[in-house]
């Protein structure tokens, strides 16, 4: 058996490896090494814990690790890259769920739930763990399209959430004062689970990147509060790191939408001054084009910027886009990709998708860097993106999306929009970009349209 001091020293080593690992994950060059360091930290933390003298039997542990390990490995290797947002949502939920169960187990353990600090930590962990579990479950269901991805309106949303939150706090205080009353704990679990459901149900698809990042943060905080129950330092440090990383991503996502976290969580859109009539914006000005016509335009283009959105993921068009880029590059055209931070359903969604199609990441250009380049661009091709290219965000002070940073696609010499129809994006607004003189619409399924375009371009040679 190992002494507690040695175990905690090894935990310290693990925590250092996590810090180095997460630091590595912030640069493309060091990311693979960072992930390895962090997994090494996890391995030694788990192995040293197995020597803890409070562990009396190993059959539950072995069974759990075999089942969990096999499931995790299968999920990670079988999942389609287009389903990555669902997987991340699911993993967040499992993290929160594990913390919740550990808090419950500690509550039932007469040796663990002895002092006030442990009881407070148990109550807080139950609250955050349950919200993470049920919130992630709703996010998963929305992304997997088990339920509608649109915002689901809940009457008196803010009031209801407020009441549930106050109820959770009151229950927590009661648990600390009556540690023998198990009913209170189950009530807290129920209230917190409902709170998680109600927090995520009203949030629509385009706001998903914020939610996923926030739940990521919660899963870390829940791990940290679990550490407070038994005074486990490695849990506190690693949980805090993950909590911080999730918070930073949440902040980046909110900034990229020019919305506060509060507004995203409670589905508040800025007041749109006047309602904008789609017919008025589009009438007689939208030009529908064909693959042949656009191929002719691309033949002489020197620089093309491709702007992907969620529609690219929906149509699974990433490989078709790469083929088109290959043909263009073969003809001497420079191809770049303009990536909006909130394009898609999770932070970095487009980057992962295009990386799967072997697009070198040097060609994926961030918004601030690509925007000055549109003016020297012959053709911008927008595939399945809408709100993030809407010039109203830049020009129309009365517009609900005014102030949101956008990709200045309209500055390119010609713009091609690949889209199923003129239907509005998440913000419900018409996009004046579609009606501009230098814009051509290529209506149809993203993948099919791009494949036809590539075909026409090849035939032109």
């Amino acid at each position, binding site marked *: 058996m190992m002494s507690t001091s040695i175990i905690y020293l090894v935990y310290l080593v693990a925590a250092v490896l*996590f810090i180095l*690992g*997460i*630091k590595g*994950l*912030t640069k493309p060059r060091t*990311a*693979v090494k960072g*992930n390895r360091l962090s997994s090494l930290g*996890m391995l030694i933390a788990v192995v040293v*814990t*197995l020597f803890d003298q*409070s*562990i*009396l*039997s190993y059959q*539950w542990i072995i069974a*759990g690790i075999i089942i*969990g390990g096999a*499931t*995790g*490995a299968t*999920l*990670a290797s079988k999942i389609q890259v287009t389903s*990555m947002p669902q997987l991340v949502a699911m*993993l967040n939920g499992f*993290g929160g769920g*594990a913390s919740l169960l*550990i808090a419950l*187990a500690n509550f*039932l353990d007469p040796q663990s739930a002895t002092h006030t600090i442990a009881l407070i930590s148990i109550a807080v962990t139950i609250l955050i763990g349950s919200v993470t579990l049920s919130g992630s479950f709703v996010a998963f269901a929305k992304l997997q399209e088990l339920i509608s991805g649109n915002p689901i309106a809940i009457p008196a949303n803010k009031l209801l959430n407020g009441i549930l939150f106050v109820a959770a706090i009151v229950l927590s205080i009661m648990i600390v004062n009556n540690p023998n009353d198990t009913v209170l704990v189950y009530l807290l679990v129920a209230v917190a689970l409902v709170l998680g459901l109600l927090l995520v149900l009203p949030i629509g698809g385009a706001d998903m990147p914020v939610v996923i*990042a926030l739940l*990521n943060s919660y899963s870390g905080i*829940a*791990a940290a509060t679990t*550490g407070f*129950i038994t005074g*486990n330092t490695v*849990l*506190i*440090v*690693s949980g*805090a*790191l*993950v*909590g*911080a*990383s*999730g918070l*930073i*991503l949440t902040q*980046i996502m909110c900034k990229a939408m020019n919305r506060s976290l509060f507004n995203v969580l409670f589905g508040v859109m800025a007041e749109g001054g006047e309602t904008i009539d789609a017919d008025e914006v589009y009438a007689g000005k939208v030009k529908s084009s064909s693959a042949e016509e656009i191929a002719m335009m691309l033949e002489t283009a020197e620089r093309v910027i491709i702007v992907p959105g969620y529609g690219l993921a929906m149509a699974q068009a990433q490989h078709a886009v790469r083929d088109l880029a290959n043909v263009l590059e073969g003809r001497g055209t420079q191809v770049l990709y303009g990536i909006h*931070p909130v394009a898609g359903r*999770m932070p*970095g969604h487009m*980057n*992962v998708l295009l990386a799967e199609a072997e697009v*070198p*990441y040097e060609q*994926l250009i961030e918004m601030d860097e690509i925007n000055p380049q549109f003016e020297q661009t012959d053709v911008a091709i927008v595939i399945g993106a809408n709100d993030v290219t809407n010039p109203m965000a830049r020009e129309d002070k009365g517009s609900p999306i005014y102030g949101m940073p956008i990709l200045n696609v309209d500055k390119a010499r010609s713009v091609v929009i690949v889209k199923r129809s003129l239907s509005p994006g998440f913000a419900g607004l018409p996009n004046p970009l579609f009606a501009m003189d230098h814009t051509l619409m290529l209506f149809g399924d993203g993948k099919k349209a791009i494949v036809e375009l590539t075909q026409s371009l090849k035939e032109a040679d």
Partner: protein
Amino acid sequence: MDILLLLTLFVVAIFLGVEIITKVPPTLHTPLMSGSNAISGITLVGALLSAGSGAGMWVNVLGFIAVVLATINVVGGYMVTNRMLAMFKRK
């Protein structure tokens, strides 16, 4: 352990996290999320202690389910991060 020490550790670790992750390139947003998610699977340590404790059947059962969930988190998180990073690496 002294609660004040633990709180200090928690707050300092949050600030440390914010400092080291100040500017993540968007290319790495998803791997950072799945990789840090694997780290939050560190609750596995707490789950192991509950699953193996002698505090009774229910503690063990809850611990067992927690071990399953946390292991999915750890193994799935690290493997899928590795898979994504491998896609970014190749040229």
